[in-house]
């Protein structure tokens, strides 16, 4: 088997190439740090097996963030493997910096020049460059599967040469100058390096370069302390070398990477933020209200007409009305799973818009715009990506927090992601909000999304001031060029999401629904309740816990049980409600009417208690999958603290929202507003008075000096 590492700068198309080579569907995006861990697959080409490893993007062999360390460690560990170094043709100059670093390491390299953009920025003489560097160069387009044969042939040829005993040796005269300059200082460590390596001359040279670069990891590894650093010298000589190459083999570039005339408007100081919010609002509107809603209704109709009704009729005809199988199918399968399945178009659309944002290159502009706000609360523009992905699915979003450089910022970003209203929470808003507010539900939903974001920013600010102060704040992010999304990519993306959603519904949510059905249809002594009387297990539990939620305005046992079931996956909240209320059709409208009409398991006293319930659902707990990822990413301690904070915030916010909304309902808008204003004034007055009293305390020397000076 041939082992190949895929290495390159961030956003040069490593994962695209990986997907094309291995026919996989790893997540790609026009953004830096989409891939956060190594991924490997084996594929066959001309009777040889090639195992290719996709690594996170790096700028050099000295890591700064977490995912860069994964990549560099991997490259150094397996330095004898073939390295496929992928470069973006439009930014070759900067990309070659890593290539030079890899040459110093002495690994066998194949240079892939990826022509992502159709427009050519400059002409490059590849054959000349190839012979000067001593590296095979393959020029291709990573998303075009036809152009891959030359790369595969190249890998096979190089592997054959390596097996025959060929070892790559590159012209490193540029760096030799620096090494000679510092040779006296480095000589002290010769012994230690030799002992560690046992006569591996080439690698010793690489370690010396790393020592000059002051790489902490290498120094720790070798147990060496240095008092000199030649970082600048080394970077200069590498770039000088690249400049000389570019002068020889490339024409002058006509266009600057990552700049566009659109930026004049999109990044305008005052327009940038409104434009972003407008785009977000439009895509949310299309997803949840116009296209998404129509598709959803259509799907619901089709499901009912062609699957659920015939199935139910068939079962009733064969087994009779009262059988538990009929109940299971009717309640758990059709009522529960069906009610979630109808949201498929909306979820798919949401993911489509999120990836459009990601692929177009607009996301790096968003990070730039949000740096103002996020920088203040101890995050960086890079968190904007994680938080935006949180609107899709918090589980996968938390993983992307690895591209943060600072540990505390990473923990904070991870903790804040669950506050973004994920796609699983949307059905709750649509069903419950739709039942009570009708067309006005759009404002409720926008309010909920905003509430999540505002609370996240506020919490981040508090954490920054108290527990999680970010130490090394840095924000270095390349601007990605604008790109159109190809039809093929759009289609495969939608298909991926549809597949994922259906699998999720068919496995996790179905299983959860069956569990909920079991618990809600059998008494503690395992008797099937059916249409007769009896108190189910879930009802007992729900009734015990429901008093906790009286201050929040909802305490019917069904809602409390739904919240408990929703700990596993938020979708289950809606499907449980559908099950408890015994909805016959699986359409959204029938669930909605059942909530208002029914006096049974799930019912709300008023609109204010619905809002309170929605707020609580938005904030109360990350789902099980997210929790497990959080534990892996930020540790048990912080996950636990995060969940605790989340529960407290959810309870308090829901309480405040309920109280306010209830007051509006009872007393009318004006009175409530005035009394609210009065309460605020009183609170500020109290704070002011306390501060004044504190200020007038005398200082410790007042008896000796006799003056009354103020203490700060």
């Amino acid at each position, binding site marked *: 088997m041939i082992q190949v590492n895929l290495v390159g700068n961030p956003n040069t198309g490593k994962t695209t190439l990986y997907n094309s080579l291995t026919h996989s569907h790893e997540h790609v995006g026009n953004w830096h740090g989409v891939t956060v861990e190594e991924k490997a697959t084996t594929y066959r080409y001309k009777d040889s097996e090639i195992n290719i490893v996709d690594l996170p993007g790096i700028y050099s062999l000295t890591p700064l963030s977490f995912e860069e360390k994964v990549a560099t460690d991997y490259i150094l560990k397996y330095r004898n493997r073939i390295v496929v170094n992928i470069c973006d043709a439009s930014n070759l100059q*900067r990309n070659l910096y890593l290539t030079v670093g890899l040459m110093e390491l002495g690994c066998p390299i194949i240079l892939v020049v990826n022509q992502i953009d159709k427009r050519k920025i400059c002409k490059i003489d590849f054959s000349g460059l190839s012979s000067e560097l001593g590296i095979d160069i393959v020029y291709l387009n990573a998303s075009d599967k036809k152009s891959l044969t030359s790369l595969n042939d190249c890998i096979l040829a190089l592997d054959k040469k390596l097996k025959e005993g060929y070892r790559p040796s590159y012209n490193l005269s540029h760096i030799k100058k620096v090494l000679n300059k510092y040779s006296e200082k480095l000589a002290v460590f010769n012994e230690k390096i030799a002992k560690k390596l046992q006569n591996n001359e080439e690698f010793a040279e690489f370690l010396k370069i790393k020592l000059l670069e002051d790489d902490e990891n290498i120094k720790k590894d070798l147990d060496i302390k240095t008092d000199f650093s030649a970082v*600048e010298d080394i970077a200069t000589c590498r770039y000088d070398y690249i400049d000389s190459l570019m002068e020889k083999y490339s024409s002058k570039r006509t266009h600057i*990477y990552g700049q566009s005339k659109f930026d004049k408007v999109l990044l305008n100081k005052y327009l940038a933020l409104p434009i972003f919010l407008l785009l977000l609002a439009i895509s949310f509107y299309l997803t949840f209200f116009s296209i998404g809603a129509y598709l959803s209704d259509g799907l619901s109709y089709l499901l009912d007409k062609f699957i659920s009704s015939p199935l139910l009729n068939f079962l009733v005809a064969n087994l009779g009305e009262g059988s538990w199988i009929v109940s299971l199918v009717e309640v758990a399968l059709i009522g529960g799973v069906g009610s979630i399945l109808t949201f498929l178009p909306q979820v798919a659309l949401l993911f489509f818009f999120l990836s459009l944002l990601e692929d177009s290159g607009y996301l790096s502009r968003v990070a730039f715009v949000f740096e103002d706000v996020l920088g203040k609360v101890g995050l960086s*523009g890079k968190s904007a990506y994680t938080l935006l992905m949180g609107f899709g699915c918090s589980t996968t979003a938390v993983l992307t927090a690895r591209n943060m450089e600072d540990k505390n910022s990473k923990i904070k970003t991870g903790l804040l992601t669950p506050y973004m209203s994920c796609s699983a929470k949307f059905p709750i808003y649509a069903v419950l909000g739709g039942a009570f507010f009708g067309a006005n539900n759009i404002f409720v939903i926008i309010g909920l999304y905003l509430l999540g974001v505002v609370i996240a920013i506020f919490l981040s600010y508090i954490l920054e001031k108290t527990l999680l102060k970010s130490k090394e704040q*840095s924000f270095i992010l390349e601007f990605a060029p604008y790109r159109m999304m190809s039809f093929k990519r759009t289609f495969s993306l939608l298909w991926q999401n549809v597949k994922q959603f259906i699998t999720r519904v068919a496995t996790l949510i179905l299983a959860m629904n069956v569990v909920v059905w079991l618990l809600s249809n059998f008494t503690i002594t395992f008797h099937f309740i059916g249409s007769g009387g009896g108190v189910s297990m879930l009802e007992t539990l729900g009734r015990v816990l429901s008093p906790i939620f009286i201050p929040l305005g909802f305490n019917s046992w069904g809602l409390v049980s739904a919240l408990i079931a929703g700990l596993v996956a938020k979708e289950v909240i809606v499907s449980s409600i559908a099950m408890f209320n015994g909805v016959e059709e699986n359409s959204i409208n029938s669930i909605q009417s059942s909530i208002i009409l029914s006096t049974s398991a799930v019912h709300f006293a008023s609109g204010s208690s619905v809002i309170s319930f929605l707020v609580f659902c938005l904030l109360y707990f990350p789902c099980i999958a997210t929790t497990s990822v959080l534990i892996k990413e930020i540790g048990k301690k912080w996950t636990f603290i995060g969940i605790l904070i989340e529960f407290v915030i959810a309870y308090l916010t829901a309480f405040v929202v309920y109280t306010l909304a209830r007051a509006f309902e009872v007393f009318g808008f004006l009175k409530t507003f005035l009394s609210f204003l009065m309460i605020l004034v009183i609170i500020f007055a109290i704070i002011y008075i306390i501060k004044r009293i504190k200020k007038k305390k005398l200082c410790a020397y007042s008896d000796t000096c006799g003056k009354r000076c103020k203490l700060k």
Partner: protein
Amino acid sequence: MSIKLKFDIVYYMRLSECKENKYYSIIKIDSLLSEKLRRRLYDLGFLAGQKVRVVNKSLLKKAYMIEIRGYTLSLRNTIVNSIMVE
């Protein structure tokens, strides 16, 4: 015994004070910036003599859009402030 003094006696202009859309040439990066970040800046091509340009600033001037070596990147104000230019 020698004592290392860590400040520059000559005052250089910082990139954050530069006019937008005008090319400047880098002199050096402030040694007060942490070692790690300085190394990353060198890796990205912020070396003495390199031409650099501020393309855009965010509303509160927290983030800067910088063009160097034919590509564009955004940097935080603290980093931009430690790049000395003329």
